[in-house]
């Protein structure tokens, strides 16, 4: 019994990371380490207004007083923050015109399946491509501006829409929210900005694609999305990084503001380099994602498929401030080999009659650890509110771990909370049964896992769902068969 399970698990562990190449581009690189001078250097490089430099310095000073959080079910050696490069940018400057973009970069994004050339663009998806610290190119800008939609790199937004940025920056994630948020606020390099005007239904999917390339750098991007009254947008985020032996830190912030009657769908397919099969290398993905349903009847929906990263620390949350507002969190998190993921959500009910749904599907294999950590807080004023949580774990083999930490605080008694949890195992019997019907182990695992994660995958936009399915199978199946 043991030997055949071991064999399967070993085979699972051998899948290679397909995005691990390095692009050879000349880069502007800050000296290693972090101090006020580095922050000034970043701000100067980006030719930022002084209010933003002040914002950064304030965050930095706050960060100095904070401690790295260690309550997550994660295990990693102390991070040396002075040994990280906080700014790296491909040298050739570029903006709206593709001719300005380094051909090496275009090649890189092509290789990743993200075409930036006009004629090859993903149909119906506008992409903002972020390479190391800077946004390289945003596609479809003309189509978008016709509808009044602003979608550009964060730096451009600071230049062109300073009032909007100033008004909403850190309005959902305060600079001192947590250690990594403070760090990001001090050193963030670029990211995406998006504003959907009143009553506009964004005609295409928006998407940011993040790529870490340079060695020893951290990536600290920042996304800010504002959906004005009665608007709608669906936003997707993808990412990859080269295969390196050392760990790299990624500490991003995503802030979303959803006004009255507006709706935002935010989907992530996270595929940072997870490290090798012995747990060497990989990205530390320590990100803060939060949105606020500011007005009545606002709706915010997070969908995430997490397959990459050596360590994940991530709790996309919703602050349900408007009455009748709705928050959703749909998640599939896969851990393999020595990966560790501590992920979940925070649903903060403030408005009356607010509703949240949490569907979390963990899949653990190898020696990995997969934890769901959630908080549902129903405030005193949030009468007649509801939460439904379902946290399932699927285990492969007996060397991995699955944990759930659902925290609930209910401050009124007119609200209803439901919680369900299951743990199951892919058994050798199930695989034998599938094999006996002529189905290879690879397809069988694909069938089982996709069946298990169906509820979440079906939430993803079409363009993403296919990729996510493939990724799920890839990150699990290995070289079996």
């Amino acid at each position: 019994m043991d030997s055949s399970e071991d064999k399967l698990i070993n085979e699972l562990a051998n899948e290679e990371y397909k995005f691990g190449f390095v692009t050879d581009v000349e880069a502007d690189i800050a000296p290693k380490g972090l101090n006020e001078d580095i922050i000034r250097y970043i701000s100067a490089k980006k030719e930022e207004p002084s209010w933003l430099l002040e914002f950064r310095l304030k965050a930095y000073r706050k960060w100095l007083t904070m401690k790295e959080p260690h309550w997550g079910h994660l295990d990693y050696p102390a991070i040396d923050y002075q040994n990280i490069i906080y700014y790296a940018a491909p040298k050739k400057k570029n903006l709206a015109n593709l001719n300005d973009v380094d051909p090496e970069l275009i090649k890189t994004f092509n290789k990743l399946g993200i075409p930036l050339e006009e004629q090859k663009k993903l149909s119906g998806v506008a992409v903002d491509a972020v390479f190391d610290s800077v946004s390289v190119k945003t596609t479809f800008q003309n189509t978008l501006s016709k509808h009044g939609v602003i979608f550009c790199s964060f730096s451009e937004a600071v230049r062109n829409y300073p009032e909007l940025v100033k008004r909403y920056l850190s309005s959902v994630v305060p600079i001192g929210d947590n250690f990594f948020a403070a760090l990001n606020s001090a050193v963030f390099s670029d990211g995406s900005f998006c504003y959907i005007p009143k009553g506009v239904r964004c005609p295409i999917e928006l998407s940011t694609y993040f790529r870490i390339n340079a060695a020893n750098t951290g990536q600290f991007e920042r996304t800010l999305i504002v959906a004005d009254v009665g608007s709608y947008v669906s936003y997707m985020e993808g990412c990859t990084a080269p295969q390196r032996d050392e760990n790299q830190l990624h500490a991003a912030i995503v802030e979303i503001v959803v006004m009255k009657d507006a709706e935002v769908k935010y989907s992530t397919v996270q595929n940072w380099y997870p490290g090798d099969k012995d747990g060497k290398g990989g990205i530390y993905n320590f990100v803060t994602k939060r949105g606020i349903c500011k007005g009545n009847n606002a709706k915010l929906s997070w969908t995430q498929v997490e397959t990459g990263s050596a360590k994940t620390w991530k709790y996309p949350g919703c602050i349900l401030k408007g009455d009748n507002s709705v928050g959703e969190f749909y998640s599939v998190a896969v851990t393999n080999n020595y990966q560790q993921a501590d992920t979940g959500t925070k649903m903060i009910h403030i408005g009356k009659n607010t509703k949240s749904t949490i569907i979390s599907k963990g899949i653990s294999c190898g020696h990995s650890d997969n934890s769901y950590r959630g908080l549902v807080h129903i405030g005193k004023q949030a009468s007649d509110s509801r939460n439904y949580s379902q946290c399932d774990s699927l285990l492969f083999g007996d060397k991995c771990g699955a944990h759930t930490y659902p925290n609930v605080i209910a401050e009124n008694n007119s609200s209803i909370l439901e919680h369900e949890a299951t743990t199951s195992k892919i058994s050798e019997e199930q695989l034998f049964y599938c094999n006996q019907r002529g189905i290879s182990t690879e397809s069988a695992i694909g069938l089982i896992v996709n069946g298990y994660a169906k509820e979440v995958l079906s939430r993803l936009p079409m363009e993403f769902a296919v990729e996510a399915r493939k990724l799920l199978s890839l990150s699990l199946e290995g070289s079996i068969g």
Partner: protein
Amino acid sequence: MLLQIKNLHVSIEGKEILKGLSLNVNRGEVHAIMGPNGTGKSTLASVIAGRDIFSIDGGEILYKNNDISGWSVDKRANEGIFLSFQYPVEIPGVSMVNFMKTAINEKRSYLGQDPIPMPEFMAKMEEKKQLVEMQAKLTNRSVNEGFSGGEKKKNEIFQMAMLEPELAILDETDSGLDIDALRVVSNGVNKLRSSNNAFIIITHYQRLLDYIVPDFVHVLYDGKIVKSGTKELALELEEKGYENFKK
């Protein structure tokens, strides 16, 4: 010859289960295997299907004149070996439709054929469901999940009908079936019988053999086939039990 087993020795965790078993099966034949609990009937079935938790300590299995010891479980299946499980396994989240479609297409891909067109697949599902009088709603559910014992057994025969194997091994398909279901399932099997395929039917009850009339009956006792005969042997066993075979 379709299947030829020569002097097979099989053990698990150091415990010897099959101790020199031989069996020949030709196309067009139905063989029944009977024997007391724990003598190795299911083990034999699993080993033919290629389950690797058992170790083969001696002897060989020839299928269509190939030594199949190096064949994976799915290769054996795609070469036409089907096992109706004594204890069918539940696979939550995987719909019967998706499961069957995947199975059929993997076989077709193995044979170098294109995937089955959807209308043809659906028509086939319909036809085979009727063959075993399976309730329509069962195929909309996950594989065996929450199926009753009898429904699971019917589902095995349904899958067999879908996959059209050359060698079908039915491990106690009759246990757990009510009288009507037994008749339906047996009729299904009889309709699938042809000069091109063969069946090995493992059962404890002679009653099944009234419906599916075997060409040969074998007694598996203590890891070996100790007696072979025709269907009369089953009647004799029903009367006398396995007393005579005890040493």
